[in-house]
């Protein structure tokens, strides 16, 4: 049975992770994870390699079941997002993803889009087909309207004119952009990004950061980004957690621009100050 809990305070949490713990092959990766992602946040999950950032994202997006705890999504957020409702002003109900049944999970998945680290584009499909796949399979829009929506999404990520190319015919940076367009296809209110800047040159990485900021501001989406690229972290984030490999839990939580000076944990300060701009 699924359970809900109500929050009536003035928080604007869209996602709440509660007591989450994960392991791999019997080895604990992270435990006792507790944090919230607020509406319109660009929330960074950071940490060193192997600290479990991607594993946490996979648990949050329903790809890997955590050992303990759950991730709660704000109910009706899809409709509230479309109606520009400020979550601070309304009563909120949250639904645990892993406690829910299959149908409910499927419903919850429509709230978010995911961009994978290597793009994960379908190589046998054109870029337009990649972006329109979910629209074709899950909506009742006419084929013509779906093509228009997919072309619009590609235009939004700067790939107008590339609709009939195949993934193998474009660069890695462009593939990441297509992957973002595909994640946005259904206009989800929440977007997850796994290492969006990894493998990109500084110029492309900067362009991608600017794109994420523009999409957040224009579409009002909430973003959860897994990255350890410090340039990107300082450019886009307004909230974050730092996962520690040794402690196996969150050792810092907050705006990275503040954490770099104010965090009590020396390791976090050292991690962030390597990329701090003077």
């Amino acid at each position, binding site marked *: 049975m699924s359970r809900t809990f109500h929050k009536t305070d003035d928080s604007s949490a869209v996602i709440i992770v509660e007591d989450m713990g994960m392991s791999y092959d019997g080895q604990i990766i992270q435990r006792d994870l507790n944090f919230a992602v607020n509406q319109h946040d660009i929330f960074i999950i950071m940490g060193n390699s192997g600290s479990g950032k991607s594993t946490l994202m996979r648990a949050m997006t329903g790809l890997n079941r955590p050992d303990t705890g759950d991730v709660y999504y704000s109910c009706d957020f*899809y409709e509230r997002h479309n109606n520009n409702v400020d979550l601070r002003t309304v009563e909120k109900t949250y*639904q645990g993803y892993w406690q829910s049944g299959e149908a409910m999970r499927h419903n919850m998945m429509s709230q978010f889009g995911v961009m994978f680290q290597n793009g994960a584009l379908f190589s046998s499909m054109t870029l337009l087909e990649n972006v329109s796949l979910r629209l074709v399979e899950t909506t009742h829009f006419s084929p013509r309207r779906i093509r*228009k929506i997919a072309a619009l999404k590609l*235009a939004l990520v700067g790939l107008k004119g590339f*609709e009939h190319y195949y993934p193998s015919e474009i660069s890695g940076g462009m593939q990441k952009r297509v992957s973002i367009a595909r994640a946005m296809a259904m206009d989800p209110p929440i977007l997850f990004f796994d290492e969006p800047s990894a493998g990109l040159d500084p110029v492309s990485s900067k362009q991608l950061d600017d794109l994420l900021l*523009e999409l957040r501001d224009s579409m009002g989406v909430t973003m959860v980004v897994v990255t350890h690229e410090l340039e990107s972290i300082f450019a886009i984030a307004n909230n974050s957690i730092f996962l520690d490999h040794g402690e196996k839990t969150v050792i810092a939580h907050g705006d990275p621009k503040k954490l770099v000076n104010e965090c009590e944990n020396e390791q976090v300060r050292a991690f962030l100050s390597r990329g701090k701009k003077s």
Partner: protein
Amino acid sequence: MSQAVSTKLKPQYLSQLKGSVLLLQLSGDWTCDIQFPDDIDAELQNTLCAHQEIDIVQVDMTQVTAWNSALLTSIVSLNDLCKKHDVSIDTALMPDEMIRLLKLALNVEARDSRKYTGKRSTFLFTVGSNAINAVAEVGEVIAFLRNVFHASMNMLRGRAVYRSSDTWLVMQQTGAEALPIVSLLNFLVGAILGYIGAMQLEKFGAEIYIGDMVGVAMTREIAAIITAIIMAGRSGAAFAAQLGTMKVNEEIDALKSMGLSPIEFLVLPRMIGMMLMMPLLSVYAIFMGVFGGALVAFAVLNITLEQYLDVVMKAVTLNDLFVGITMSVVFGAIVAVIGCQKGMSCGKTAEAVGASTTSAVVTATVIIFVSAAIMTVLFGVLGI
């Protein structure tokens, strides 16, 4: 999510011409895919074409309760239309977020473009391209065989770089691990041959010759062919999939960049392993087939195992065994070469790996039967 009571208003639009201004009033919830008014683009196009006096299109979205990209596509289309008809758009009554998105979408210049060519092609084009592909494929196989030959020469001179442990692993995978399926299929084929033979031989009172039939057929050809087909489907497909995936992951490029020959390092162990295991598996298969026939002989014709084996021993000669083993070596080489060649020439997509694997099995199976026919005639002519 809790099921919200539906209070959605139907998405509607109304266009009114006021002098030179076309007022487009939108209202309701435009996020609903089922009720989305798909005719809006055509309607606006008709209006703009019919009224050349229009200077401005004013879009009023103050009554829109919710919207998403679907509505934005209509606004983008309207913008294109207005540009075409030299009409300006008044966006004062549009949400700021939509104006920002519109700017983001329109500020991008098409950096490149490609027309959709579709997947249809003429019969002549299909035949021609298939013929060209077939010729190119033969060329690829010949080039591959040449490389394999050079690699084999290097190996004989002791200059080839490969890991012998890989060869042992291939021998285990293609040999020992294939025993159960080889046993089952050859036993059944022997039994089927024996049963059909028994039905026919009974008519002439020549039941005892079932041993001749099963023994000679299995030893000379059937065991080798059945085993080769199993190997093509099992190991040939595995070779193609393994090497194809390595190509997709750039592992083969990594080997080349280290100065190692992928043919020596990857193909030779597979070829050696397969060519050594095939004759052994075939001999084993012969025994299984003969035992399958023995079971039928005993069950259907009441021929004892001693009588049956006595007939088999008299009927099967060393020449028959030589023919069977020769065929199995050739079939082993075919399966290994085709499997490895298809893997090495695989494209860099998941779909290409699947196509290579399928092609490896189909091509190897066809060539096995063609070569079996040629060898049968050849050995017949040579009197072996």
